[in-house]
């Protein structure tokens, strides 16, 4: 069946091409007498279809269509311009996007990248906070003690200018070996061995050792007090800094939102302008069409009047009473 259709379609096509060349239907059918009955109706339908005209659009519609296309081009250009020049920096856009995404979909349906970034941020902040809190009670020799010292130094940096730093009292606690040295000296008094390990008590240096030990203890106590003060100050500074960052973040969010709203408003305005322009074009075209119609009507009226005049003239000429 398929092969027959295929060969028949080839024969039909050759007949159609013959018709295009101007050959007559009986001549074409004579070449395929066994298929003539099948070919004739199809060729007649094809001939009839070819006789139908290609329709013509009105000039007005063509112009309107063109304007619509150009308006779409304007709209796309505006859209493209907004995409090319972001009104806000990347971070603001990200925050703006995050805020609008939370508003639109809620926290549970956020994009994967947003969720991952938020979880990382929370883990980082909470981990940092707990480590710093734990380091506050650390003693020299502990692993977190380095962090504690670092925090103190950070507190100092945040508290004072570089120039003033040199004038401030040193609040950093002495190194572990310094404590050892002091205790060693005290032990030496009790054990009768205050010197560098000679074993023989020296009564003349005893008072000096006691005084120096007492000074060391006083110094130690003062240093510890200063250390606590510094810790407190550092904590306060850290909190202030956190607050400031939070405030900056909120400001950035607000700014991003504002920028987004401004951009939306501007885009809306542009779109309205384009629409207005299109409407204006439409009205112009309509007016023009109306004018053309009126002109045509006037002309037709004028023509009919002229015809009437001619008629009257003919009638007058035909009337014997009008003849001289």
């Amino acid at each position, binding site marked *: 069946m398929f092969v027959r259709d295929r060969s028949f379609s080839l024969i039909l096509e050759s007949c159609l091409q013959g018709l295009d060349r101007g050959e007559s239907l009986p001549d074409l059918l004579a070449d395929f007498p066994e298929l003539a009955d099948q070919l004739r109706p199809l060729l007649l*339908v*094809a001939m*009839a*279809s070819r006789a139908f005209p290609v329709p013509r659009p009105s000039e007005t519609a063509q112009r*309107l269509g063109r304007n619509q296309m*150009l308006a779409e*081009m304007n709209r*796309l*250009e505006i859209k493209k311009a907004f995409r090319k020049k972001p009104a806000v920096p990347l971070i603001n856009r990200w925050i703006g996007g995050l805020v609008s995404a939370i508003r639109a979909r809620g926290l549970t349906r956020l994009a994967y990248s947003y969720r991952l970034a938020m979880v990382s941020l929370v883990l980082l902040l909470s981990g940092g906070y707990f480590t710093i809190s734990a380091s506050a009670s650390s003693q020299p020799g502990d692993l977190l003690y380095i962090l504690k010292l670092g925090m103190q130094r950070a507190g100092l940096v945040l508290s004072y200018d570089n120039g003033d730093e040199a004038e401030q009292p040193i609040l950093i606690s002495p190194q572990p070996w310094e404590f050892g040295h002091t205790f060693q000296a005290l032990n030496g008094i009790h054990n009768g061995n205050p010197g560098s390990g000679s074993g023989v008590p020296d009564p003349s240096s005893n008072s000096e050792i006691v005084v120096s030990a007492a000074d060391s203890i006083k110094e130690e106590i003062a240093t510890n007090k200063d250390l606590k003060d510094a810790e407190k100050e550092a904590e306060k500074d850290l909190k202030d800094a956190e607050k400031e960052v939070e405030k900056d973040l909120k400001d950035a969010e607000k700014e991003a939102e504002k920028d987004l709203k401004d951009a939306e408003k501007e885009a809306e305005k542009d779109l309205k302008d384009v629409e207005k322009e299109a409407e204006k074009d439409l009205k112009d075209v309509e007016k023009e069409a109306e004018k053309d119609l009126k002109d045509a009507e006037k002309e037709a009226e004028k023509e009919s009047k002229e015809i009437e005049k001619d008629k009257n003239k003919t009638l007058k000429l035909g009337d014997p009473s009008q003849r001289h």
Partner: protein
Amino acid sequence: MDIKEKALLYRAHAGDRGAAGTLYEHYYRDIYSYVFYRVNNASTAEDLSAEVFVRMVRHLPGFLDQDKPFISWLYGLAKKVIRDYQRDRKELISAKNISGDPSNRKALPSNGRSHTHRDRHALGCFQQALQRLTDPHQEIIIHRFVKGRSVEDIADLINQSEGAVRILQLNALKSLEEALERENCL
């Protein structure tokens, strides 16, 4: 697609209104006549043809990445526009009598002679019968017989082999003959 046409397309994509206008002027009538026979209404055909060109500028970047003849892509857009229109109306386009629709009568070229009532009736019959065919059959009848395109051109246009187009042509003519009989046009 020739180089001149390609250049016009790239210029239109870059926002050159003159290039877009040239493309519009070149293809509008072709698209309009196709849409006219598909929807059987002159004013609807005008609206839908305009929509085809709006979509053309909208989707031009996507087309430029493809290796496809422009005219074929444009007809593809026209088919989508017609399909969307038919779906939106949720009904097949009603086959109106051409003589009863003044906008249709206006769309027909006079070719130096006025259309008689018989001409209009014949065209109405043809259009009614055409609406009864499937989309591919309508398409082949319009391209091959109304517009007078060759089998090779149609094969390029609808992205099919010439053999497939010939078979489609045979089946379309058979269906049209049946439809004309049903409409009492023969």
